[in-house]
């Protein structure tokens, strides 16, 4: 190993590769759950699924990906105040999404598709597993926010911020597959 291998720049590429491999691995959980939904229930979907709510929370989550991206660009240019503002917006949108799923969607679904039924199993397992990832995402973004507020990130070294935001995009992309599978497919 040469000196280059120990430099910060080199290590950040290692970490980036590690993060992407981690996300490849994590997607397999969702692949298995998505496949199980079709295996168990085909394209069967109860009519009571709340389409309006689904559309609203999906839009909120996608919007949060946009603010997350802007936050990353901001810190890459050394604009700390914009970074903090946009990151806080992202966290807020993430929490709204989480509240939409857990406090509105779940109580409704408990009535027409409890977890002891086929669709309910798929619904609660998928949204639950995704909500867990959203929760960890919010937690990591919050850590990045705290570190950013202390001035922990520079233009050259903002790996923590980058990682939390890339992970946030990953959580969003997963939802892009979960949403149609639970809300749109079938009739």
């Amino acid at each position: 190993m040469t000196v280059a291998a120990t430099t910060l720049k080199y290590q950040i590429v290692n970490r980036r590769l590690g993060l992407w491999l981690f996300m490849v691995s994590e997607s397999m959980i969702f692949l298995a759950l998505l496949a199980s939904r079709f295996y168990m229930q085909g394209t069967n979907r109860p009519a009571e699924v709340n389409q309006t709510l689904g559309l609203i929370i999906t839009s909120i989550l996608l919007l949060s990906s946009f603010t997350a991206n802007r936050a990353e660009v901001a810190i890459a240019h050394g604009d700390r105040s914009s970074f903090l503002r946009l990151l806080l917006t992202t966290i807020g949108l993430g929490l709204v999404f989480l509240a939409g799923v857990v406090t509105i969607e779940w109580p409704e679904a408990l009535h027409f598709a409890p977890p002891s039924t086929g669709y309910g199993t798929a619904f609660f397992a998928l949204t639950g597993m995704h909500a867990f990832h959203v929760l960890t995402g919010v937690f990591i973004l919050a850590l990045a926010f705290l570190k950013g507020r202390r001035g922990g990130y520079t233009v050259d070294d903002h790996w923590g911020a980058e990682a939390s935001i890339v992970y946030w995009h990953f959580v969003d992309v997963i939802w892009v597959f979960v949403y149609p599978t639970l809300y749109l497919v079938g009739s």
Partner: protein
Amino acid sequence: MSWIKGLLFGIVGFVIGSGLMLLVGQRRASEPMVTVGYIFFLVAWLLGVGVWDHWARGWFGLENKPTPTFKSHGVARYFAFSTDHKVIGVQYLVTFVALLLLAGALAMVIRLQLLQPTGILDPQTYNTVMSMHGIIMIAVAVAAVIGSLGNYFVPLLIGAEDMAFPRLNALSYWLVPPVAILLVVGSLLPGGFTSGWRVYPPLAERGGISMLLFLIAFLTFGLSSIIGGLNFIVTIIRMRAPGMTWGRLPIFVWSIFCASLLSLIFTQFVATALLMELLDRVVGMAFFAPDQGGGAILYQHIFWFYSHPAVYVMIIPGFGLLMEIVAHFSRKPLFGYKYAVGALLGIVGLSGIVWAHHMFTSGMQDFLTAPFMLSTELISIPTGLVFLVTLGTIWQGKLRLTTPMLFALGFLFNFTIGGLTGIFNADAPTDLQLHNTYWIVGHFHYTIMGGEIFAFLAGIYYWFPKITGRLYSERLGKLHFGIMFVAFNLLYAPMMIAGLYGMNRHVATYPPELNGINMFISIAGFVLGSSFLVFIYNMATALRRGAVAAANPWQLRTLEWQTSSPPPEHNFSYAVRVNGHPYDYGVDDSTHVAPATGAPMPAAAPAAE
């Protein structure tokens, strides 16, 4: 001591976690209470061990102490938290050899039970013993070679100072002790393990709290496996020394790379399958309850989607060790290096599309049978290539029949039988007859025990001088091989014959007509078990008073032999530059490592205390 501190923290964590669940109104010793308690236990255990220290300090803005690679020297460092890949490799090695011997002892109990048609244990206890043997051996097979030899030697073989993520490496090791604790505790609880290591529903979902412990133990182990795989991939891609191109990578490193790809991608499926069972049990979901809209065979599909690639996670590092050792001790270039790499990658590619051959008798849709039969048989092409490469390397070589070489040749013999008997399992018409018999048990042990475990032992003997700085007794090593090889074949070949006569697997009692052959199998089994006494004796005496090993006792070319035995803290005392192929024995003017330009090679380090 990390162990004691970790356990204390873990117990406190369990009390907090389970206490919280009691507060929200869960019953005592209910499944949610135990599950949440365990999650707290795991986090607190890692905290006590010291895994979180560095990360958590960074997150919360605390000042970060520079972490020493190991907190203490001498034997004590192997019991403490350490980020040195060599220490972690030894930790893995000792842990998994201990687990191997434990599960081997359980196998002796199984054979004692089957010595007589009626046996000595009640069926419940027998099931627990069998399930414990199964799951521990699966864990050993998945992690023993990768975790120990992979951890110790991949960075050395590619000329790196350490793994890409040393702390993640430590994390993946420290996740293992909780698994062992859970399994031991679970097996002692009333009810025990009823379902075998595959934990099929509905049996696994209806068993007592011990089955819950089994499921979360398996899940934790999966996590460790995924993290380890990720680390190896990044290490091999990013940490190679200058000149160590992909075409010069030792074949063992390639095999770890391939196995890591598999564990990274596929382990999540078994994790998900187990999680689904947990959700069914703890939350009352309906994944595997067909009467409520779930799928009965769904579990088997997801489970085998991991567990078939898992056998390649086990055997590919075995193939790597086989080719590595055969090339070195035939003193010849590896025959068809590129084909060998292609074969390993081919196995990786095919491994994901063969899983349903485990399910020909499960009642899955008939149209799945033919495609899975075909894809399974396709795998014999890359596997055959591995064998051709090995045979081509041996051909006209100057064989040195050292102990590791003997084990490698034993692997070659055993796996040939294991592979050929596999054809009958891949063909649905014969599999329907053979599926639930000892034929399968014999076949499986021929491939994994006769293959991977032989390779593991070959690897231990091969690198023992490097790890310990001592030489073992070749005479005792050969004795171990001789007894083990003969007993192995007398054990598993009759097992397959017993299967043909109708000896079912997973049974505690059997018809008296089969007594003779079972008695023969049991006695061979006891002889096989006793061969490990020779192994332990040899290792123990070599550690205490073996001759001091030189840096390169066998005059081999690869990088791990070009540093002292054992290697210094950062592996090499000079800047490594690779300029040739690792196996070019007898090729004029060929070197693997460029002559050191910096400081000279150190003399052999003083032996480990």
